């Protein structure tokens, strides 16, 4: 695959910039990734990184409340932001005539956001509604991304609820927000990405013009969130009052995606071999042969692969009828992992996973939003935006032995098992 053109530079204030021009459609994407996610929240402030993300849309020195949304949309664009374990991103995708506007909007809130008591109280209410919608009022809400980490991990940064609990959210103050902004939202702690229809020289000049006078501030030293893998199988149960049938999530630790990327990618291929497509191992065994689950999935990272630094999670999840026990599902999973560990996958299984990944990567690049965000997060987490374009080749280089070794390392004596039970027992 030909590598698309990438330009990168760093402004004197420390802001890292990635430009990825592509003139195939007259649209442009702009994103800013800040090197702070919910793993950086202090105890007693769960959900704070996400709440703060909401506040960054609520006005700045140049723009009153609601103006950000109106300016993006009246330029024909769309926008959003999201909070992950290790970063928070903001983006706009617009017709290319609006490039300078998007840069202005991101620079203005990086320089001088307006954080007010009124907006904070309002957004605490909005975030609580978001949590009711996605977690509290919904079957399988937060499964497994909120429920599995506290079983697999022991330390607060890795184990706590990144959406936050209501008491912590209500206790957040304007001064907490000011401290958070000054600490983590420095230009030197961020990556700006511009992708799509623009001329690189012109875009560079606009970036310098709008971001150049955001004053440099000290960048915090990023702590290590490393912790030891479980010594034994850890188990927990969760009762879900809305779920109609039981489910389970199994979590394992995997290699550091930054320093051992090939080791990590073997698990990405393993996930494909296990659950991607009707011919995959766990679909065949659990859904079609034994018919003991309704659905099964496996993957790296609770937000997707390569979306977090170490420590990251490999998870297998399944929803199953009440008459099947979680032990039956676990036993079948363990048998299939053992088979893969002993015999390895076939060359054809790897070829299938690789071809689907090549295709998936192309499809992601074709959607400007995913391309912009993918380049930005790869630059922030790995220092290499081009990793995105190298992934298909790297995945194709993973051998059957490496996948077998990855399967072997998913040990039942070093994992977390979360069992989700319906309040009704699943026999309504």
């Amino acid at each position, binding site marked *: 695959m030909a590598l698309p053109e990438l330009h990168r530079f760093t402004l004197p204030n420390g802001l890292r910039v990635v430009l990825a021009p*592509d003139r195939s459609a007259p649209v442009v994407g702009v994103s800013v990734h800040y090197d702070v996610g919910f793993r950086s929240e202090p105890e007693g402030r769960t959900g704070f990184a996400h709440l703060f993300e909401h506040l960054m849309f609520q006005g700045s*020195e140049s723009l009153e409340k609601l103006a950000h949304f109106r300016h993006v949309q009246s330029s024909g664009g769309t926008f959003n932001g999201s909070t992950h374990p290790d970063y928070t991103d903001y983006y706009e995708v617009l017709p290319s005539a609006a490039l300078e506007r998007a840069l202005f909007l991101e620079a203005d809130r990086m320089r*001088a956001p307006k*954080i007010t008591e009124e907006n904070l109280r309002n957004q605490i209410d909005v975030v609580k*509604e978001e949590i*009711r919608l996605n977690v509290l009022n919904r079957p399988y809400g937060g499964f497994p991304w909120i429920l599995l980490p506290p079983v697999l991990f022991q330390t607060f940064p890795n184990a706590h609820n990144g959406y936050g609990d209501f008491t912590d959210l209500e206790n957040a103050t304007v001064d*907490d927000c000011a401290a958070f902004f000054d600490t983590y939202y420095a230009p030197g702690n961020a990556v700006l990405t511009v992708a799509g229809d623009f001329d690189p020289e012109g875009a560079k000049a606009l970036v310098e013009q709008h971001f150049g006078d955001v004053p440099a501030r000290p960048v915090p030293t990023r702590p290590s969130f490393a912790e030891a893998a479980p010594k034994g199988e850890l188990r927990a149960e969760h009762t879900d009052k809305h779920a109609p049938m039981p489910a389970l999530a199994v979590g394992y630790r995997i290699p550091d995606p930054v320093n051992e990327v090939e080791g990590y990618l073997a698990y990405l291929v393993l996930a494909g071999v296990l659950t991607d497509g009707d011919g995959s191992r766990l679909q065949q065994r659990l859904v079609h042969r034994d018919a003991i689950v309704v659905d099964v999935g496996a993957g790296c990272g609770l937000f997707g692969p390569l979306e977090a630094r170490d420590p990251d999670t490999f998870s297998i999840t399944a929803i199953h009828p009440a008459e099947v026990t979680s032990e039956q599902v676990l036993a079948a999973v363990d048998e299939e992992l053992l088979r893969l560990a002993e015999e390895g996958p076939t060359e054809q299984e790897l070829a299938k996973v690789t071809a689907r990944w090549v295709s998936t990567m192309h499809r992601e690049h074709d959607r400007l939003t995913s391309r912009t965000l993918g380049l930005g997060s790869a630059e922030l987490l790995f220092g290499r935006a081009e990793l995105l374009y190298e992934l298909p080749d790297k995945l194709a280089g993973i051998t059957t032995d490496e996948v077998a070794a990855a399967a072997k390392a998913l040990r039942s004596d070093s994992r977390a098992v979360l069992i989700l039970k319906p309040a009704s027992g699943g026999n309504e």
Partner: protein
Amino acid sequence: MSAPTKHRSADEIGRTELGPRPFPELGEQRAAADLDAIDTTLANGLRVLAVRRDSVPLVEVRLRIPFGDPATSSVGSTHAARAEVLANTVLTGTATRSRVDVDTELALVGGELDAVVDPERLSFSGNALVSGFETVLDVLRDVLTGATYPADEVERERARLVERIRLARSQPNVIAREALQRHLYGDHPFAKEMPEADEVEAVTRDDVLALHSSAVLPRGSAIVVVGDVAPDAAVRAVEAALGGWTGEGTAVALSPLSPVRGGDVLFVHRPGAVQSQIRLAGRGLERTDERYPALQLANLVFGGFFSSRLVENIREDKGYTYSARSHPEFTPGGATLLVDADTASEVTVAALLETRYELGRLGLVPPTESEVDTARRYAIGSLLTATSSQGGLASFLVNLAGLGLDVGWFTGHPARLAAVTVEQVAEVALEFFAPTSFTGVLVGDAELLTPQLRALGGVTLP
């Protein structure tokens, strides 16, 4: 907060020496390249719409087969159940391919192919590396002309479908959607988006085979191909693969619906809910109606995007909801305007009151020039971004094809939006957004909501 011992105050952060800066003007917009497209119909009646877009070496395929229930009422009809089993098993076997063969062949060309059904259509959606275009078409040919519905696959998928229906019906948005469709359209087959478990259990392999031969028909169907393929080559490839797909008659389009009439909102009790679903509906306009572009803009101003009156009121001002929106839904022979919001039980009735207030206000305090211009630029720009990927364009075009529209409608739409006047928007706002034109459902915990709903009125309580 523990992190820094010294930091600026929020006031200090929100000020710079230079002060507020002027917002930049738009630059010059480069026009989208003209679409290189062919729209033709094969001898077997299949419409083929092929568009070249070579941004990535992929091809996207969408096939839409009208798949309506020929019966006028869903009462006593097994169509929905049979159609659902068919969609879930059509890719599980042919004379020359097993389920695993289908998956393996597609995977090796980086491909996927799925089938889903709803009350209006059976849809196949596929993609692959462009080098695998012929493989995708050949698998499609094989299942359209020779799906065998192996008995064991039918049995297993039927059992799994029952479980999946149960899972779906535990989701609040599905509960609300089913209640709304029943409230609006009664026993019309359009309202039945999901069959009952016992109906699914009764479906036999013979039922599915019979439905396939009578309803999976090329005449009336449309296939869209978007990707790194010249349109004439794409049409030739489709013809070579699907030209031999034949069948008597025309695929069945669903009978038209009566337009939605305003009335009370029906309350649906969901014990223990901590949040309620507000789902309102009123009559809309078809895409081909000359007033449609004005209604599209009126809808955006009301609740169709973030910078709308409804979102600014009940989310950004009052914090009642995370998500509120309004949007058109194109129905057989017409269109419906839908308004959705999910709100905490304590503020549900207040949110319903504010939603009705905004409906009334849209007609009585009509959109300003600035509101209309914001909506207009958003409508034009978001059409450009949503269709800038192969997949986005393919999905958009197959929906247009289902309405009998073509690429010309798509490329001509920005000019239609540009021509709408503020007066035209005001006119449709008053007619279509009047609170009396709406009805709907409200799903929530009766114990918490009943006293306030009784006070508000306009809601049928259990």
